[in-house]
């Protein structure tokens, strides 16, 4: 008997909202998160792309100062989202009055694409300019990609394992697959899952630009992220974090938790095709979609909504369409698509986590968020994209998917069901 898994808490800090409610309100309205960067390093290093989608609320405004000094920005953002989700779920921490969790049955699955890139590069500058004595003793725990998972496990008193999926832009959804595995194996009752990224740093900005992956619409950042549009020219770098409390239905019901949706299934596949380019036939992505539906015990006709990966690159959006078409066939016209990166930008390792939060909200509120900047839809991708105003999903039992794909040929799909 497979254990049924449910989502009971949500958290997010993003370019269009520092909490889930603000994110959701803005995602329904259609709110561009990208702005011209005001950092002196943009001009200093002559960056070809001068805009990005920075978080709406600086983590230093939320966290205590000694905490921020010991955490890379990526861990800071992850901590903010994780605490929101934990509190939203009504869960407590060891030492809290009335703490009644078994800490050995509480786990963390927190992903990132890059990890502590600011710390790594700042520390190298410190070493070169001021010598080894000035290199902070916290450098290693701050730069390591598992830094967020470790720090969050400490904060929540989670002793059931703290894992870190690292699969570039698929990381956030892979974190949910890891959580699902831990829970279905019976290794934990509650998992804080999510992903974080803080890579709006001159080096990744220069590197992604060098790869011709970023939009160059420096004169109009708000319209730069335009998935499925004929004039799309690249993704918009974003930062932020998303977190979801996943627990067994039994555990959630026993404590009377509010249940937003079921985490019905998930799947991971790899292309083995090219290190950065997606497989044009999208065989790996198609397999991930089929296996996620199988894992969820869902029929094609159950699916009403997909939060697509859709980064707004010329080459990336089409293979995802090909995968959806090959799996859904004619039913695809009954599936509404939201490309929320049009609003948030691309949060890399946090993208799948924030988009899973939005997918869960869509099912719970029965409304799909909008895609902005879709002025001339590419006729090669005839999808039913939600634009203008949110789409009513109706009150029947239904399944929604969240897709994330990453450099390295990683494909990750999570399947959620209304509860």
């Amino acid at each position, binding site marked *: 008997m497979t254990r049924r898994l449910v989502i009971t808490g949500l958290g997010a800090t993003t370019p269009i909202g520092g909490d889930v409610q603000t994110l959701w309100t803005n995602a329904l309205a259609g709110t561009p998160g990208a702005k011209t960067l005001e950092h002196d390093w943009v001009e200093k290093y002559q960056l070809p792309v001068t805009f990005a989608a920075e978080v709406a609320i600086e983590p230093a405004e939320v966290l205590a100062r000694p905490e921020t000094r010991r955490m890379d920005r990526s861990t800071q953002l992850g901590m903010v989202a994780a605490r929101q989700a934990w509190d939203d779920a009504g869960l407590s921490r060891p030492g809290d009055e009335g703490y009644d969790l078994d800490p050995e049955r509480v786990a963390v699955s927190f992903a990132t694409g890059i990890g502590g890139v600011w710390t790594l590069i700042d520390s190298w500058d410190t070493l070169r300019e001021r010598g080894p*004595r000035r290199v902070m*003793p*916290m450098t290693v725990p701050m730069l390591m990609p598992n830094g967020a998972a470790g720090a969050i496990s400490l904060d929540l008193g989670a002793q059931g394992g703290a894992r870190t999926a690292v699969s570039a832009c698929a990381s956030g959804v892979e974190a949910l697959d890891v959580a699902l595995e831990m829970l279905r194996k019976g290794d934990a009752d509650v998992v804080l899952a999510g992903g974080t990224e803080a890579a709006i740093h001159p080096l990744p900005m220069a590197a992604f630009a060098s790869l011709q992956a970023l939009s160059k619409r420096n004169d109009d950042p708000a319209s730069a992220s335009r998935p499925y549009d004929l004039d799309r020219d690249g993704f918009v770098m974003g930062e932020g974090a998303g977190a979801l409390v996943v627990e067994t239905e039994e555990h959630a019901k026993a404590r009377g938790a509010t249940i937003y949706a079921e985490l019905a299934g998930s799947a991971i596949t790899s292309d083995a095709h090219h290190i950065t380019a997606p497989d044009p036939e999208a065989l790996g992505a198609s397999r991930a979609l089929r296996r996620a539906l199988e894992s969820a015990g869902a029929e094609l006709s159950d699916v009403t909504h997909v939060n697509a990966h859709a980064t707004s690159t010329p080459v990336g959006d089409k293979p995802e369409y090909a995968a959806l078409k090959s799996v859904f066939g004619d039913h695809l016209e009954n599936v509404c698509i939201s490309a929320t990166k049009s609003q948030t930008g691309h949060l890399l390792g946090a993208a799948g986590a924030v988009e899973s939060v939005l997918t869960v909200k869509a099912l719970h509120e029965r409304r799909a968020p909008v895609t902005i900047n879709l002025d001339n839809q590419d006729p090669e991708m005839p999808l039913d994209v939600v634009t203008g105003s949110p789409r009513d999903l109706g009150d029947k039992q239904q399944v929604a998917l969240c897709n994330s794909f990453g450099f390295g040929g990683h494909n990750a799909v999570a399947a959620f069901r209304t509860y």
Partner: protein
Amino acid sequence: MADKNEILAGLAEIVNEETGLEVEEVQTDKSFTEDLDIDSISMMTIVVNAEEKFDVKIPDEEVKNLATVGDAVDFIANAQG
């Protein structure tokens, strides 16, 4: 050159920056570990910042002897001497 009151005030600022403790709590009779709850990692950061602020060397093997804030003030005053 700073006198002991100035060293104490400077140390208190460094401790505040690292830990968030109020500067008034950083008094000479306070133990770094027992009273101020400063762990070895924060202590190393405080030491390195104090070296820079007061232009002294505090060898790593000396750090374990600096049990209280007063010990650190005395060491820095002597090292400056």
